[in-house]
Each structure stands twice: as C-alpha cells, then as structure tokens.
C-alpha cells in the first residue's frame, strides 16, 4: 500500500493539529516553551520497519509503548535514541541526569510519551468517531530490533507502520524522535477513509 499525495497531506495535517495541542500541554507541564516540528509522515510495511528505523536511530532506543484497542487497534511508540532520551529529560527537568535513565527519569519519559501518543490517538479516535481503549504506557529500553520484533512478531495480519518524524525544541536544545503507529490493514483503511472524508 502506498499513500497518495492527498492521503499523506491529510495525515500530516491531522497529526500537525494533534501535535500543536501536545506542544501546549508539554509547555504547561515544563513551564518552558516547547515547539514540535512540523511532522513528516511516511508509511512502511511493518516488516521493513526495523531496517528503516535502524537507519535513523542508532544503538539502544528508549521507547514509550502504548497499546490501543477498539475499532482501530494497534501499537503506538515514541522512539528516541538513548542519548536523545537523556537530553530530553535534562531539558524538561533542568537537572543533569548523569547520562543515565534512572527510574524517575524513565517516568518523565513515559509521561511525555503518554501525552504525545494520547494526543495523536485521541485525534484519530475523534476523527473515526470511535472509542479507543488505552493500555498504561510502558517504557522499553533495549535494542531496536528486539523491541520491534516483540510488537510485529506473531501477528498474522499484514500490518503497516505509520512513521511520524518529529523534533522537540525547547529553550535550550532540540531533541529528535519518531512516533510510530503500527496498525493492521483494516485499521489503516478505516483511518485513511476517515482522513479522506474529513
């Protein structure tokens, strides 16, 4: 499946709206002006995801993973490489974390991921007029391949991944990350249809 120009623009616009809301809530949370870059949206078959993403994030990744269910179901991920994750925490909390993600830093990361993923998913929920149920977000820190395999493996249905490239800019620095939505064909069809009608 390849996104048409219109579908891509439509998705980008939606996610853009969602992110501007998100930026506002992040700003409020941190008392800092948080800007989110205009996101870029690309669609990949899920089995290509590892090779696509490994070109963009190196080594260990910190991922906030949230499962959503309902008429649209799938996995939502906020992916940062480890260094970016550490930097993001430092920017948000104004504290040096000493190059490590301790449990309270991990919690902050989960909260940020939670806010971003909620913003995105609820936008889709609103659009589809469906109720989505969310799991509690979890942080996974490990190799990219291991983590993605957990999500992709064992699923019979052909699945697609919407990769949203984004960056957070705070007063004192910029952190780049990726938002990844892994969806089944049915869910993706439903989403694209809704985007077309919106």
């Amino acid at each position, binding site marked *: 499946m390849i996104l048409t120009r219109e579908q891509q623009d439509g998705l980008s616009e939606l996610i853009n709206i969602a992110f501007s809301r998100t930026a506002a809530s992040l700003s409020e949370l941190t008392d800092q002006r948080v800007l989110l870059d205009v996101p870029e949206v690309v669609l990949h078959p899920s089995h290509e995801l590892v090779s696509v993403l490994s070109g963009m994030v190196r080594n260990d990744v910190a991922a906030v993973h949230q499962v959503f269910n309902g008429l649209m179901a799938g996995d939502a991920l906020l992916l940062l490489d480890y260094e970016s994750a550490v930097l993001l925490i430092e920017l948000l909390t104004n504290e040096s974390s000493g190059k490590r993600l301790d449990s309270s830093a991990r919690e902050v990361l989960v909260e940020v991921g939670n806010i971003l993923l909620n913003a995105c998913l609820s936008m889709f929920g609103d659009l589809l007029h469906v*109720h989505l*149920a969310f799991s509690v977000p979890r942080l996974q820190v490990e190799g990219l391949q291991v983590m993605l395999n957990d999500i992709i493996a064992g699923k019979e249905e052909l699945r697609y991944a919407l990769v949203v490239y984004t960056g957070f800019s705070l007063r004192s620095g910029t952190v780049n990350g990726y938002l990844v939505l892994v969806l089944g064909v049915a869910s993706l069809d439903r989403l694209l249809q809704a985007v077309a009608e919106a």
Partner: protein
Amino acid sequence: MVPHQQHAPDLNQATLRWLNELADQGVFTTDTELRIAVWNRWLELHTGLETEAVVGRSLFDVYPDLLARGMDKRYQQALEGQVSVLSQRLHRYLIPMPPVIEATGLAQMLQSVRIAPLTVEDRVVGTITLIEDVTERVLREDELKQQIEELETLQASLRASESAQRFLSEASKLLASSLDHGVTLENVGRLVVPELADWGIVDLLDRDGQLRRTLIAHEDPAKVALAHQLSERYLPRPQDPAGIAEVLRTGEPLLVPDISESASGERSCNAELLALLRSLQLKSFMCVPLVLRSRMVGVLSLVSAESQRRFGPADLYMAEELARRAVVAIENAELYRTAQDAIREREAFVSIASHELKNPLAALLGHAALMLRRAGQAEPLPPRALRSVHAIMEQADRLNTMINSLLDVSRVQTGQLLIEKTPLDLAVLVERVVTDLKVAVNSHTIALRKADQPILVIGDEVRLAQVFTNLLGNAVKYSPAGGQINVGITTDEGQVHVSIADPGLGIPAAAIPNLFQRFYRVTRTSDKHVSGLGIGLYVVKEIVAHHGGTITVESTEGVGSTFTVHLPLPKAERIAG
C-alpha cells in the same frame, strides 16, 4: 469507613474490600462528574481525610489546587478513555499530604500517579486514580546516583593523574636528553606549549641578581617575536611589587585563574602594556618558582590566551612538577656550559702561555749557544763551566720540545694545526728520521727494513717527520738500553704502513684505548719513571688523522709494543703499485 455504595455502583464488594484493606497504594475513584466515590484506607491514613468527609464531593472541591495545576484536563481525558501517567519528577505530588519526618528532615511524599478511565462494558462510568509512594525509591536512587557520580569523579581524577604521571615521565626523559643550554630551554618550551598552556616563559636570575628572559614559547613565531619586543621594554625587575618578582621573593607559586577578574596582574602594568596584553587575549596565568637546592634561580610562567583555558590547582601542580624537573635540566645545562667555557679558557691559557714561554727560552738558548761558540774561540771556559753550559743547552732543548708539543695541542684544539701537503717519498723521509736518530741515540740499535722502491704520499714533510721522530723517541724511552728497535715500511691495497716495534715494557691492555687521548699517561706498576706530558701520541694521532690515515698499536706487557702508522697512497701510486 465503608466506601459509599451509591457513588460506586460499579465496583463489587470484593474489589472494594481489597482496595480498602490490602492495597498499599492510594486509590480513589470518581463518577463521570468527578465526584469522589471511593477513597481507600491508605488515603485516609496519609491525608487525614475520612472517607465520609470526601465521598460525594467534587475532587476539585476537596483539592482546589488540582484545578490550578491543570489536572482537570487529565481527568477529562480519562473520561474520554485515555490513561495518564504523572511522573514525580515533573509533578512531585498529586494529592498533598502532610510532610513526614525522614532521616533527612521533613519530607513531602513523592508520588507516582496513574489516572485511568473506569469502564464497565466499554462504557466509561468514571475515573480511577492510583497513587504510589515512591519517596523511598527516589531517595535510594539519588543516593546511588551520588555514589556513582563520586566513583566517576574518582575515576576521572585517577585517569587525570595517570596521564599527568605519563606526561611528567616523558618530560623527565626529554629534559635529560640534552646538556645543551639552548636545547634544554627549547625542550621546556615544547613541553609547556601547547600541552599545558599557550605561552611558556622562563626568567632566570643572573649572577648580578637581574632577571634574564631566557625563553618565550608559543606556537606562532610571530607572536614570539612580538613577546620578545615586549620583554625588552617591560622585563620584570626583582624589585617589582607583584607578579614574577613576588614569586621570586616569596618562593610561593602564583595562580591567577582569570586575569580579567584579578587586579593583581594589572598592578604592575601601565596603560600601554595593559592594552598590549589585552590584545593578546590573555586569560589565565601561573608563575612557579624554579628552585635548586633551596636557591631561587628563576621563574617559570605559563599563560593561557587564545585557548581560553582557565588554570586550576591541578594545572598548578603540573606546572610545579614540571618546574622541579626543568630546573635540574637547566642547571645541568648551565653547569655544562660553564665547564665548556672553563675548558676554552684553559686552552686559550695554554696557547698564550706556550707562546710567552718560548720568547725567554729562545733568549736562553741563544745566549747558551753564544757562550759555547765563544768558548770554542777566544774565551775558553773551564771544563766544569763548559759541562754546565752543555747541560743548560740540553735542558733548554727539552723544554723547547715540550713547549712545541703544548703549542701543537693547542693548535689541534683550536683547529689551527696547519698541514702543508706536498708530494714526498715516504721511504726517504723514514730513512732520514732513522739516520738522524741513530746519531743521537747510542743506547739502542735501530734497524730499518728499507722499501725497495720510492713510496709517494701527499703530506706535510715536517709534520710526518715529527710523527716518526716521536714514535721512535717513545720506543727508545720505553725500552731497556741495548734493545733493538725495528722499523718497517710496506704497502698494500692503497695504503702504506710504517711500523715501529720496540722490545720494551709494553702497554697494559686496559690502557690501550686511552693511549691517544691528550694528557693521558699510562700508570705502571713497575718503579720505572719516564717523564712526559702525555701529549705526544695525541698530537701524532691528530697529524696522522689530518693526512687521512690511522695509527694502531699492538702490545704485550713485558714483551714490547708495535705502533703502526697507516697512510693512504695517492690514486696514481695505487695504480702503479
């Protein structure tokens, strides 16, 4: 204490009981209007608010602070089905609780919070909030983090000290590698710049107690030139109130981490100098005393400029350690230079003294010769007086020979030994020397194995005669009377070899390597004393070397010695021979 039933219609009794009795977390639920429905025992205990006092009331009514902190949004999202995670780092707490007394004093509980929709058959009927006390965990982690940081600091300082030790050991090696004063100072500069500083300056005290700027090191030669000009105009004086002079007076190092923050660097500067210094972007400097056996010999100054490096105590330590090593090297180089100067002075003295001695000696010899001539003619001398005049002539001759030798030594030393080379027949020259000596020596037999053809060499006739006379003289001097001295002359492979063999005392094997050094005299175990200055063989070797030749010696103690002079034959002779 039992949760209010009508506000929690969707939680069964067992769940409520579990929440109340067993949960070690705070749990409360609300209905869709965000009115509190369940308030568990943990919350009662920690907030001091009884269930009866809160159930049925709006959450924001009980805690207006939550509204101010924007929590209404989170609860709204929960009613829309979303889960929220609140991290303690960003929020510290959700529900304020009275501080508890911790080991570290009064502490506010740190909370990790989850807010989720309460759903029944896909229908959101309210919200549920879980509050976990993470204070202890966070404190433990902070403690751990602090320990890790301390460890890392320790490791870093270990690494730094290792690399410092490496640097200092390299420095010691480099500084010990030369005795040349200039090279040693250059090495100090190379060690300082750019590893430790942008500028390295050495000021040494001279004998008059004045400072001499002996080194200015910087990577840019243009800047070094500028600094030299500056130094000529603004050389520090020992009486200056601050800076280098102060270090010299007190022996205490000076560290100015930031020049712009310190007035001490400017105290002794005038406006023009200050402007110049500013144009060099000087940032930080340190001056350490160069102390040798508790005597102040100078100051090593390190300056940071364009690197904008700020010197700290660790840098000062390095500078002091380097100074300690540098001062020894500088002192050694100074001593070596002094010794070299002394040798040059001595050589000049020997040269002058020999010349000065020759004048009265010439007069002495002249007058003695005159007396002898007169004695042979008009004014005969009594026999005893005649013997005395002969003795005067002999001793004056010996003295003359010695002075000539000394003059030769000084000529060799000063590079003034002149060799006037002309083609000559070495066979004839050797024969003449032998014949001359046979006349003078009655105590020994001298046997010459003549060459059967002329042997042409290019050389200085007078100097080569001096060589063979000297060697033959030694052979006579160092062998018992009645012995036979054999002189041979042979050619092969482009060389001529003149050997002089005596049946004498021989030379101890240990002495042979030093034989041709000046002023070297063989120490003998026998009682026989032979006079001499120990310069004859030195001059012989130098003359032979000036002819492109070598001299070798073979000797067995008690059997005798053979000295052989090897001289190159000119190419034409080689072809003919």
